[in-house]
């Protein structure tokens, strides 16, 4: 199974501006001043030493993930603005010929998780089937409202593809080819749903837009159970811990809490997502470093009391792919 990240921004699109690109370029050139960069190998070695913020941007698009099974089954999670580029890529295959069946899981219907839907090109090709699943009862209504003539020139009832909607419930399993899907309601204004996607004995959990209002073991237990032994947990890390404690009831979490939950749930890899649009790539680099440092402290003290394997921490960014 593989997960590809098409959008990781939280709340609203947040593209890199020229001034930010220029600042990155300047910082790289400053570091390159005394380096020999004559060969391809020297350039690659130089780049490998640079911090995340100078070699990457987390990307400006909002939430969209693509999961591919080893046998080729595909599931899309969320239709943030990242779905636009994914749509164009899919158009090069069956979707361009009107032969694609595309299951789409929606965590919830807040703007940043659906605003790429009207720009998802497979929607406009006759013969394609888009199967929208989610825990909310109003999936169709939310997508129709977004394409109301006041907001968009094409209405949902006018699109060429066949679009179906199905509400999912906790404790039931949805089979999509080799992939098995279960959902879990999270604490977020209006509710959001985590998805646990399993192929064989390996699971991936996407749990974005979630607040953990109490952090004691009993309050965390339902979530820890749902995330238990996952290979990858894609986690809402919108705020630093300090900012989070000032934003009670905003419905989001922090990478530091993600570390503790992963340690409790024996998760192998924590992937940070739903980045706050006010945080720069430089700040995201600092957050990654601090999260790693917190993990080291926690693992050193915890001394294998709860967990049985190491924990990796990865910054989510557009273009990231993780094999599971």
């Amino acid at each position, binding site marked *: 199974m593989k997960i590809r990240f098409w959008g990781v921004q939280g709340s609203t699109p947040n593209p890199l501006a020229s001034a930010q690109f220029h600042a990155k370029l300047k910082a790289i050139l400053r570091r390159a001043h005394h380096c020999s960069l004559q060969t391809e190998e020297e350039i690659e070695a130089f780049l490998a030493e640079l911090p995340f913020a100078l070699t990457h941007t987390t990307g400006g698009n909002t939430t969209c993930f693509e999961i591919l099974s080893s046998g080729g089954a595909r599931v899309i999670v969320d239709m943030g603005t990242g779905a636009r580029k994914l749509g164009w890529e899919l158009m090069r295959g069956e979707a361009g010929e009107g032969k694609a069946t595309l299951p789409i899981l929606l965590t919830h219907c807040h703007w940043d998780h659906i605003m790429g839907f009207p720009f998802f090109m497979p929607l406009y090709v006759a013969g394609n089937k888009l199967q929208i699943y989610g825990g909310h009862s109003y999936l169709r209504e939310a997508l129709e409202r977004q394409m109301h003539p006041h907001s968009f020139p094409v209405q949902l009832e006018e699109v060429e593809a066949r679009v179906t909607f199905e509400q999912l419930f906790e404790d039931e399993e949805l089979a999509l080819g080799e992939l098995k899907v279960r959902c879990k309601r999270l604490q977020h204004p209006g509710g959001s749903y985590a998805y646990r996607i399993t192929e064989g004995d390996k699971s991936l959990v996407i749990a974005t837009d979630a607040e953990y209002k109490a952090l004691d073991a009993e309050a965390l237990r339902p979530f820890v159970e749902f995330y238990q032994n996952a290979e990858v947990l894609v986690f809402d890390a919108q705020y630093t811990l300090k900012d989070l404690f000032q934003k009670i009831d905003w419905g989001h979490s922090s990478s530091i809490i993600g570390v*503790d939950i992963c340690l409790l749930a024996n998760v192998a890899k924590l992937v940070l997502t739903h980045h706050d649009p006010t945080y720069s790539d430089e700040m995201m680099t600092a957050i990654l470093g601090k999260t790693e440092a917190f993990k080291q402290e926690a693992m050193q*003290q915890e001394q294998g009391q709860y967990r049985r394997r190491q924990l990796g921490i990865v910054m989510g960014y557009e273009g990231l792919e993780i094999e599971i």
Partner: protein
Amino acid sequence: MEISALKENGVWIVQLSGKLDSFTSKQVEDFLLAGIAAGREKVLIEAGQLEYVSSAGLRIFYLVAQRLEERHGKMAFCALTPHVRRVFEIVDMASEFAIHTTRAEALKEF
């Protein structure tokens, strides 16, 4: 987790010993909030025996500080272990709280 408390110069000194994590945080939260509800508005957390603090513990410290602020009270720490001090620094909370080396030093500031 062991919790003990005493009063000195009008300050409620709460001594925490052991690991403050998701398994023990409720115990500490209930103890501290009960003290505040009973009118204790000057709180000193003495953490010389506190081996470990997770995000669950950090949340309690923030919560208690907020409750005290609402009542014009004050919270401070003293005798932090290297681990706890390091965690405070990592999550940028070291500057949020009054942190003192010893109890005597902390009591002078209340």
